[in-house]
């Protein structure tokens, strides 16, 4: 997995048979608030400007149907591969997987990182059809930071 600075800027690494986008950001909120936001499927469209809808339950082994602003006409059918409350969430399909991780920093903030690697033997044939993720990743991370900090600071 690519290591990136916690500055909310996405970095994409391209290889012949794969492409990987990663982002990291520090959030001044309890990791359980961030986890609640990441694991509540129906609530995503309220705070996340990159997600149109997510149907299903985000729980280990569950299938979800995700519509993203990246490709609004397409429904991504994904399965939740890992679900470790408060620390790690992975969903994906045969072509790739997205990994979310949360870590409490020494100063009490939470580091959020998100990484998506797509690829395979056929990847060079369709790689040009897949839009870049960078902007969407940055919006996702910043929306999450804004919403989580707003909840943390609520009375």
């Amino acid at each position, binding site marked *: 997995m690519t290591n990136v600075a916690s500055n909310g800027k996405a970095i994409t690494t391209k290889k012949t048979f794969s492409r990987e986008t990663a982002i990291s950001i520090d959030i001044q*909120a*309890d*990791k*359980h*608030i961030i986890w*609640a*936001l990441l694991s*509540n499927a129906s*609530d995503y469209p*309220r705070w996340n400007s990159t997600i149109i809808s997510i149907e299903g339950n985000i729980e280990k082994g569950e299938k979800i149907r995700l519509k993203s602003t990246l490709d609004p006409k397409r429904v991504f059918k994904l399965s939740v591969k890992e679900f470790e409350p408060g620390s790690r969430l992975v969903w994906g399909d045969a072509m790739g997987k997205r990994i979310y991780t949360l870590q409490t920093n020494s100063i009490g903030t939470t580091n959020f990182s998100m990484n998506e690697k797509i690829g395979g033997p056929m990847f060079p044939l369709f790689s040009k059809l897949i839009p870049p993720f960078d902007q969407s990743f940055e919006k996702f991370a910043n929306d999450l930071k804004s919403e989580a900090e*707003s*909840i*943390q600071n*609520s*009375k």
Partner: protein
Amino acid sequence: MTNEQFTTEFEKTRPQLKSYILRITASVQDSEDIVQDTYVKASMKIEEFRGESSLRTWIFAIASNLAKDNLRVKKRWTEDVTDICREKALSNPNYFPEIMQIQQSSDHANFEVKEHINFCLTCISKSLPLEQQICILLKEVHQFKVSEITEILDITEAMVKYYLHTARQKMVSIFEGRCALINKNGTCHQCSELNGIFNPKQRFEEEKNKIEFAKKADHPDRQYLLDLRLEIVRGIDPFNSVGSDLQLHHLEHNRKVMENFLDKK
């Protein structure tokens, strides 16, 4: 604490506990049963009460757990509850005769817009996920602190804040789309319709002007309007208000309609 002391303290809490459970269950019978079960359970466990939280917090924790186990509570209503129930009421030939009967026989059957606002919030809050509904009721209606809600629900402060925040956001959004008191294009005019039926001599515009959040409907801070709405709810005891018998009948009606609706779904 002796059982006698406990009973005295419990009776002080009983009215607000009953209102709280009514708002969760929408059932008069269930709220009475759950409050009584809470009394019995708390009496049996009173020796375990260490005074680490207030007795009121401890009692609400026991009641909340009992309410969460209630099957009716687990079924969540839909945001358009008032539309669905209005249609059913209009097509039910017994509905208005029943109401007329209540009006003739009860001293608590006056229709007041603010009581309908309380009723409406109860119905809309039942469309929230249960944890969100419980958190918003505890914090905004029964005025528990976040730290006390963590004890009542045995969840972290972070989760209480998350549930409260999302509950408030959803309530604002639902009322924004539906409530004609704050949005000229709102789809629900039920309070003015009912006021026209029960208080035909009143001018609704005058009644509306007595409602602070309706008067300030153009205020840009929609959370503030929700706070004003919740302030009205805090001031109403649904079992002892001037229109309690009318509103409780209305609530029972909506509960039955929603139960049928959800069973068929």
